[in-house]
């Protein structure tokens, strides 16, 4: 059974392994829910629940194509996660924190001179 759709942000959404599996599959292109359910060995209602969560947090979008509804990645939703994880920015933000502290010490030392 899929978990209840209680999540409201991308961080929670990708904490669920099956939802990560869905995202991984969608990287290759759009799919109907039946395909996704079959590939991942889920029930269709289970896959649909996950897709609903992923849509609500902006990670997945859907469009109609004839009789089918095709699900695809909407990677904009991952932006907050990407930024949070982004080690380069964190590296420099933390370096600049230390720079700030150091420069304040330097400033004070110069004023005392």
């Amino acid at each position, binding site marked *: 059974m899929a978990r209840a759709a209680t999540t409201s942000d991308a961080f929670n959404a990708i904490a669920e392994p099956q939802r*990560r599996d869905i995202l991984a599959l969608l990287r290759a292109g759009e799919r109907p829910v039946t395909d996704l359910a079959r590939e991942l060995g889920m029930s269709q209602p289970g896959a649909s629940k996950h897709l609903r969560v992923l849509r609500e947090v902006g990670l997945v979008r859907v469009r109609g194509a004839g009789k089918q509804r095709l699900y695809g990645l909407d990677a904009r939703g991952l932006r907050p996660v*990407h930024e949070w994880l982004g080690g*380069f920015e964190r590296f420099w933000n933390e370096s600049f924190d230390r720079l700030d502290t150091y420069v304040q010490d330097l400033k004070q030392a110069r004023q005392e001179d």
Partner: protein
Amino acid sequence: MTGARRQRQPESATAEREVVISRVIDAPPELVFEAFTQVRHLSRWWGPEGFTTTTRFFEFREGGVWDFMMHGPDGTDYPEWITWTEIVPPERIALLHGESRDDPNSFESTLAFTPHGTGTQIVMRTVFPTKQLRDEAVEKYHVIEGGKQTLNCLAAYVAEIAPTAPITVEKEGP
């Protein structure tokens, strides 16, 4: 490349290959600039909390080199090699940043120091040779920064499917 990625076009020629980080520091540009010019300053703040550096060679001039080892809090060593391509005190520093002299994946950062009230705004713009290298750097520095190996898979995964827009992080000092 996924279909989702292709939907978005880069906003400029370098947008998808760059990272921009800015910070305001409450000290004049001359003083902030100075903190970038000598090992005795740099060794006090370069890298996140818990990191230290050991410098093999340092010559702060255009064309000069800073060859050093960065030591992570978990004991891991990271070779670093920097050469300055432009130095305009107290306004601007451009440097090439890699792991060694011949590193084909080295990337360029420019640091601009501008007066901001009584303080200084630093804008660091880093342009990677390719988007892939930017994503790899984001991942690599993530690993360096925290030593949090368990998050590697997720970081790599996110980097792969993340959008192509530039990453801009605004953070103001206290």
